[in-house]
């Protein structure tokens, strides 16, 4: 049972109050996209064993979507953050790197 804190209304609740919405930060493809782009957007997933950035909705609470950084191998939650962003914010990246020093966000260079 996951216990999550909604970053929109700050309520902490059991996972039954939330709904998982799959991989986060997908680029939405519109009219004019190629078949490959649509396939990638609609179906292809990272599905990592480890750090997963994902969408959740606080369905039985404030109703808002948000993002969550979670580990699929341990169920550890690194933190939640706003859905109004296309990349995980610094404090989330730091929380992840505390446990996984080699983890990198897409295209991020080693510091």
């Amino acid at each position, binding site marked *: 049972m996951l216990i999550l804190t909604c970053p929109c209304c700050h309520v902490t609740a059991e*996972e039954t109050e939330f709904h998982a919405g*799959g991989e986060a930060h997908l680029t939405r493809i519109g009219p004019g996209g190629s078949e490959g782009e649509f396939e990638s957007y609609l*179906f292809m*997933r990272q*599905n990592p064993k480890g750090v997963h950035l994902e969408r959740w909705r606080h369905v039985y609470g404030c109703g808002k979507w948000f993002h969550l950084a*979670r580990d699929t191998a341990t169920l550890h939650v690194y933190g939640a953050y706003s859905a109004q962003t296309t990349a995980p914010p610094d404090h989330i990246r730091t929380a992840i790197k505390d446990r996984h020093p080699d983890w990198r966000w897409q295209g991020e260079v080693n510091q």
Partner: protein
Amino acid sequence: MKKYSVFAVAREAMRHHSGWPRAWRDAQPKRRYDVIIVGAGGHGLATAYYLGKNFGVTNVAVLEKGWLGGGNTGRNTTIIRSNYLQDPSAAIYEKSRSLYETLSQDLNYNVMFSPRGVIMLAQTEHEVRGYKRTAHANALQGVSTEFIGPERVKQLVPIINLDGPRYPVLGGLWQARGGTARHDAVAWGYARACSDMGMDIIQKCEVTGVRQTGGKVTGVSTTRGDIDCDKLGLVVAGHSGQLAGMAGFRLPIESVALQALVSEPIKPCMDVVVMANTVHGYMSQSDKGEMVIGGGTDGYNNYTQRGSFHHIEETVRALVETFPMISRLKMLRQWGGIVDVTGDRSPILSKTPVEGIFINAGWGTGGFKAIPGSGWGFAELMAKGHSPLTQAFGLERFAEGRFIDESVAAGVAH
């Protein structure tokens, strides 16, 4: 390989069972094989078996990071049926079901196939229409099923409550030759037969990398060294995304937990398998007398082989309404497996972007029933480059929009 028979049992009974040999060799990895299969679950082992049996390819290794059948094959609730909606599904699942009929004889290993019959309950008007449609489709596909009314359901399942307040039983899709089999025995029987053909089944050997040159596979790296091969079959269920990642491509698959539980053993009270897809619950009684219960998947990606407790609660709550007598049963054990779910809830049996690598995955919540048929078709695909059974299940269907949509038809696809 010593043949198992009634005479062998009698002979061993006379000498305190001291003469049974190992069922399969504990093999050490060689430097090179013609074919390497990653994953010694049912699908990997069946693939190896039919590669040898149907195509004479026996220089084969099956690599397993844990123990034989320790993945979903040894964790599932063993429902076998073939009453799917779409033609390609019906073809491969019915091939599989029919192979199960004679599997014990083929393998000389008792897999305890029990064609006791499977009912899928229709508990909403929508399901009544859906299952009638499936029954018609099955008639055209040559799969023997029928839609039955509530009285017949009650005859087949005396312990059922037809007029539950939330989900009354309005009828059901009945497949008389569906049933169950012993899951471990399926893995063990195939392993024994493969080992007997000279194949190496190597446990505690995790694949950690896929080696390739010029877009063609050359071998794998493992925790027990590098091993070369001409062809590589990835048959790792929940870990398919990881293996594909090693080989450099992505899959339309997400890994989630699916749970099951068993009760204390009780006297025989239900001799068919009952599935209630609207409420995500299904149940059968094992030979030991335990009620074997399965539910729905968790909603989020997960590799921990542990699911959320509320799913079990929901499943049991719904089943208690339909089977009031189980309300007093104690549950003994509960466990989870990581299942590989695709966008259209149908499997992928396919070539991949890397030459020489083939993938058999995406069986999700319902691949135990498919083990013999999938192994049959996938072996043909790996040996000859194409197979009528697997043709429709290629990876390219997601780009082409040519789905084999079983999610609408089955809801849950066990």
